[in-house]
């Protein structure tokens, strides 16, 4: 069966550009999470969706970060006016229900901002 997929796998952006990162969760999974993983660090929580509702966006580092999941399946993380400090791997995870359930991670999108 298909796992969580993310695209693109790699993205190079010039400082100031907008980027959009896509996540396709496991079919039927209610919950979707976005994490940011800096080099050599553990993932850090960004935001959480239950179906199409964004219930928690406490981890988004600034108002340049925006996420959506309009139909309760595919999600997009958008970063406006990218900065060098945005360079990281962006991981998407999905689970059947909420955080105590197993979260299945995608391979991530590695973003490099020059």
């Amino acid at each position, binding site marked *: 069966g298909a796992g969580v997929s993310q695209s693109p796998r790699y993205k190079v952006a010039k400082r100031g550009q907008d980027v959009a990162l896509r996540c396709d969760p496991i079919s039927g999974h209610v919950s979707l999470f976005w994490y940011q993983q800096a080099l050599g660090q553990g993932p850090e929580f960004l935001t*959480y969706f239950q179906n199409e509702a964004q219930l928690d966006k406490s981890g988004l580092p600034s108002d340049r970060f925006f996420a959506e999941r309009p139909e309760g399946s595919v999600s997009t993380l958008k970063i406006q006016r990218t900065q060098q400090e945005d360079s990281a791997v962006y991981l998407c995870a999905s689970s059947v229900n909420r955080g105590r359930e197993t979260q299945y991670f995608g391979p991530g999108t590695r973003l490099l901002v020059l």
Partner: protein
Amino acid sequence: QQQVKQSPQSLIVQKGGISIINCAYENTAFDYFPWYQQFPGKGPALLIAIRPDVSEKKEGRFTISFNKSAKQFSLHIMDSQPGDSATYFCAAYSGGGADGLTFGKGTHLIIQP
């Protein structure tokens, strides 16, 4: 503020040996403690998880030991194999807090043949 502290940062173990990774937490609201394994270029994958009502959980060669009073938990990998070489993350979750997992900084484990 780092809510989950993980050590060591890196670890080298001989094949067949025991690998031990430790984590400590401060937030007593945490009630679910998973360990994730991550290979280069891949996303983290759940290895084993424990809830605070038990002191130990074993799955194959992997064991979590949990000390609620000390707010510490550890991962033991018995009979470590070269294929276990990866980065390991402990994590914690609080149902009453943010909906995501709080991860430690990771341990880079190398198993020497």
